[in-house]
């Protein structure tokens, strides 16, 4: 059975970016339908149990899941219609979106579309990587922080980005032992303060090291790690075996561009932002004039930038639909400036460069 549904604005993905977009558009009077393939809204916010960086405007110092709760309350108060268990499976020729909703297929016709489909975690391969007990760091984080389930007791973390550092800390909070963290690069790549937390808890961090092999019969029982040289090749004789039951991969994320690509949005490649992503202008409009993109889909960063990109996309889409007020221009300017600020400093500058390039590419189309 295919049924039809119409709305002014359809937002795909109810994580921080999608929620931000839906909230700002609804605030200006747009009728918004927000869909998500999961049975709860909030995206990956509910597994973030640490206090967030940022400023007052980003709820800094508040824990991620609490920010998620606040955003859901706000969306609900503004009358955003949220449809869960609804997976956007494709875009049809007339611009409508095919959505699998339980066992039904629904065709949604919207005047504007905001894609906030997020990102997926990367993996690296090594002998034994398919054994039970090898999984993404995000899986362990979700299971521990949302479902009260530790996926292992003795854990090796792979990758020293913020995900690897934060998840290590959170699993210790839940009672696991982090036997060590390996990083293939010569230096820790996440924030020093996050590394500091797990160092104070006594976790060894081995830079210029990688996983060589996972061993075990029906699940991981041991891991072999080793040093790498400047070409990232293993150095003979440096192998070390650790008794672990779990190996977690925190080796970056990739934007989920399938829908954007299907919509005909032009893609660009920015390695620092996760690879292929839809190019967009300063106000998050893709190369298709009815499709906006935001959050990790538009380049993997973090929840604060995702939220603000969403707010910007929602405001811009509302304006394009004819909904704006005296404060709209000012609001957009503040969000653009805020995003710029979030990309300042030692860590942000590279992302700022990438984003400038993305915006430049958009203007060349």
């Amino acid at each position: 059975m295919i049924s039809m549904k119409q709305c002014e604005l359809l937002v795909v993905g109810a994580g921080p970016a999608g929620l931000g977009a839906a909230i700002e558009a609804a605030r200006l009077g747009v009728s918004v339908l927000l869909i998500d393939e999961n049975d709860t809204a909030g995206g990956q916010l509910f597994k973030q149990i640490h206090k967030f960086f940022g400023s007052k405007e980003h709820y800094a110092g508040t824990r991620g899941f609490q920010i998620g709760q606040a955003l859901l309350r706000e969306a609900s108060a503004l009358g955003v219609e949220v449809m869960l268990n609804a997976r956007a499976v494709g875009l049809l020729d007339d611009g409508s979106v095919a959505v699998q909703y339980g066992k039904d297929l629904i065709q949604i016709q919207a005047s504007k579309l905001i894609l906030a489909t997020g990102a997926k975690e990367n993996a690296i391969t090594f002998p034994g990587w398919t054994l039970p007990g090898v999984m993404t760091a995000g899986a362990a984080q979700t299971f521990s922080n949302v479902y009260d389930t530790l996926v292992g007791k003795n854990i090796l973390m792979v990758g020293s980005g913020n995900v690897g550092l934060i998840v290590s800390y959170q699993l210790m909070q839940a009672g696991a032992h982090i036997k060590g963290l390996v990083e293939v690069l010569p230096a820790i790549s996440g924030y020093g303060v996050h590394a500091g937390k797990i160092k104070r808890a006594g976790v060894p961090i081995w830079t210029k090291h990688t996983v060589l092999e996972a061993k075990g019969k029906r699940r991981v029982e041991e891991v072999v790690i080793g040093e790498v040289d400047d070409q990232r090749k293993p150095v003979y004789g440096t192998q070390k075996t650790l008794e672990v039951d779990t190996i977690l991969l925190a080796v970056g994320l990739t934007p989920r561009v399938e829908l954007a690509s299907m919509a005909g949005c032009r893609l660009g490649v920015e390695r620092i932002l996760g690879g292929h992503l839809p190019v967009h202008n300063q106000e998050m409009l893709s190369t298709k004039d009815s499709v906006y993109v935001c959050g990790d889909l538009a380049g993997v960063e973090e929840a604060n930038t995702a939220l603000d990109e969403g707010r910007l996309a929602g405001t811009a889409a509302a304006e394009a639909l004819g909904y704006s007020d005296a404060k709209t221009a000012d609001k957009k300017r503040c969000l653009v400036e805020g995003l710029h600020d979030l990309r300042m400093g030692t860590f942000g500058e590279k992302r700022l460069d990438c984003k400038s390039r993305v915006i430049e590419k958009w203007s060349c189309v």
Partner: protein
Amino acid sequence: MKDNWLKQGYIDVDDWRKDMNYPSEARRKQKAVAAIECFQEIPCNPCRDACPAGAIVLHGLVERPKLMEDLCTGCGLCVAVCPGQAIFLVEERERHARITFPYEYVPLPTQDMMVEAVNRAGETVCQGRVLRVAESKTMNKTRLVTLEVPLRWADEVRSMKRLEGDHENG
């Protein structure tokens, strides 16, 4: 300094002593003072907003916080709010130092308990006596533990060894 800190994940104590936010000896001996060990430009400023005395100067979002030690009252609100858990309180007495740090593990220590005091690398450097375990609604589940340790470890002790016996199978 930076290279070493990014390789090992913590700052060497000698580098801390040279840092702009290392409190003066006079101030450390006067009463508790914030030790802000935030060395990178991170888009984050809640410490400034949390300080009721206006003792933390930070323009915009990514600048490193700068402590005005004469204004700091040692209240610890910045310690609890800092998402990086990079702020501590230090107070130097005649023979002992009192170190306050954020703590988010269970079980919690209790007053007068003797615990293993650890440095920035997580190594036990001495025993410490728990003077106080503070928590409040504003601190949002981050507890502030104050340890009394021998004075010579004042610049080193930044946490305690986690206590065993938690999280056993139910």
